[in-house]
């Protein structure tokens, strides 16, 4: 009786069949996914990538809530046409604090991995309100309520605590000051701006919205969009050290 005839055992016992299927599928998963956790070359060492500020994180939550990832990717692939259009290809380290990552797989709209500082805050505001006001041929829906809805950020420090468990280096100082930092980043000349920048280098603190004293959902989302892809300085980043 050859080995081929052993399949009768699997065909006659459903539990053994399920276990067999599980083992075969997990081999594929383990071989493809597990090495990414221990291979040091997976994530490049770069300077400048820091965790999101509370305001950016709140904006990111809105980005996820509104399903922006359904039409926008955040992944510039290492292909000539993409680098020519969007800038340097995305590095793994640029999304190492993303849980979940927003790489996306659909591009009804353009890639957003390096949209930070590409357009003015005013443009982002008008564009979110009604994209056709600034881009006549756009098929993106308008999000006019974002600028009218005050940001509910009372739980932002809890979000940060959870991310800290997942490995994002939020310190207890950052988590304690979450709401102070959030307010400081959303206004011009806030007294807390210096402390914010000390905790989150290069964080841009300014009034993202038109209404003074109120932080709207649009403000948070714009703060998030305006920092996307701006953390790594590609003038000093060494491409050749990270060829793979």
């Amino acid at each position, binding site marked *: 009786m050859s080995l081929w*005839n052993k399949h*009768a055992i699997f065909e006659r016992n459903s539990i053994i069949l399920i276990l067999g299927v599980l083992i075969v599928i997990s081999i594929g998963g383990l*071989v493809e996914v*597990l*090495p990414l956790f221990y*291979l*040091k*070359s997976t994530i490049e060492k770069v300077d400048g990538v820091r965790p999101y500020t509370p305001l950016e994180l709140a904006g990111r939550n809105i980005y996820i809530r509104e399903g922006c990832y359904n039409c926008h990717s955040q992944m510039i692939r*290492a*292909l*000539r046409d993409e*680098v*020519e*259009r969007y*800038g340097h*290809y995305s590095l793994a380290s640029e999304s190492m604090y993303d849980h979940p990552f927003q790489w996306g797989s659909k591009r009804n709209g353009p890639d957003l991995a390096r949209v930070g*500082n*590409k*357009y*003015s*805050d*005013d*443009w982002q505001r*008008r*564009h979110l309100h009604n994209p056709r*006001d*600034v*881009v*006549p*041929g756009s098929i993106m829906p308008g999000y006019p309520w974002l600028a009218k809805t005050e940001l509910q950020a009372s739980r932002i420090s809890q979000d940060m605590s959870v991310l800290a468990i997942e490995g994002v280096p939020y310190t207890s100082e950052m988590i304690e000051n979450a709401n102070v930092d959030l307010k400081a980043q959303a206004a011009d000349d806030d007294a807390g701006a210096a402390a914010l920048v000390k905790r989150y280098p290069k964080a*841009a603190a300014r009034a993202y919205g*038109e209404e003074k004293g109120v932080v709207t959902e649009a403000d948070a989302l714009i703060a998030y969009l305006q920092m996307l892809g701006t953390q790594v300085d590609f*003038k000093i980043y060494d*491409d050749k050290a*990270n*060829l*793979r």
Partner: protein
Amino acid sequence: MSIAPHDPSPIDAHTGTATTGHEWDGIRELNTPLPRWWLYMLYASIVWAFGYMIVYPAVPLVSSYTKGLFGWSARRAVAEELAALTAQRAPMVNALAAASLTEIEKDPKLLSFARAQGKAAFGDNCAPCHGAGGGGAKAFPNLNDDDWLWAGTLEDISATLTHGIRSADPQARVGNMPAFGADGLLKPAEVSAVADYARSLSGLAVDAKADLKTGAKVFEENCAACHGPEGKGIQEIGAPNLTDQIWLYGSDKATVVEGINKGRGGVMPNWGGRLDAGTIKALAVYVHTLGGSGG
């Protein structure tokens, strides 16, 4: 139901094909072999997969992974493609870099190259605000007309592109329209009067009851410093000409009053760090040919 794995007569009498040997209530299952061509394709693809694993990076190891015979990497491949592209463009890019902006506009070959490169870069970077053809939108200037907030010479356009307007760049163009109403510099009645006066400068019809006399006085005391005594604007500080028919935000009274109350100050990002010098030069030439002024 009975399963007989060792049926003594596994060949089906009607078709001559082997059966699986199983029997259900007298019915036997034919074991028709896979088409040969299909089977050989399967074997060939398995062999191909092993070859692929040897030639390309494939197998994760303890602290590294197999690099493959060719040492291929996606990042090196794109770097090489970009280098080839740079080399291909080099003659024209170098000529562009060596030539002054005015020389470019006089040399038809350089000009057409700069315009083509500028047009592509414009579509990727500038069109979202200034429109696909540079036509602009509310709050984002039209680049096709002869009206320039910050002067439209080649050098000026190039400086605006590099450093931006009210951007994070320390050399950015700055100049702010104060929030006269919101900051309490003017009373609502004064704002209304000066709005009427400002609209009258470009010949717009104003309400018969408008107090143009007060408006003129308020204008002289508050606005003339930047917009000029005649309201013709000062390009060094980006103060727009109020006597022409071009209105960035709209010419109706409510919009003008809003501007005086809250102030205005559009932001243009600084492209110096994002785009290379050659692309900025090409963009300056392209924008200048749209509606630039002077040399």
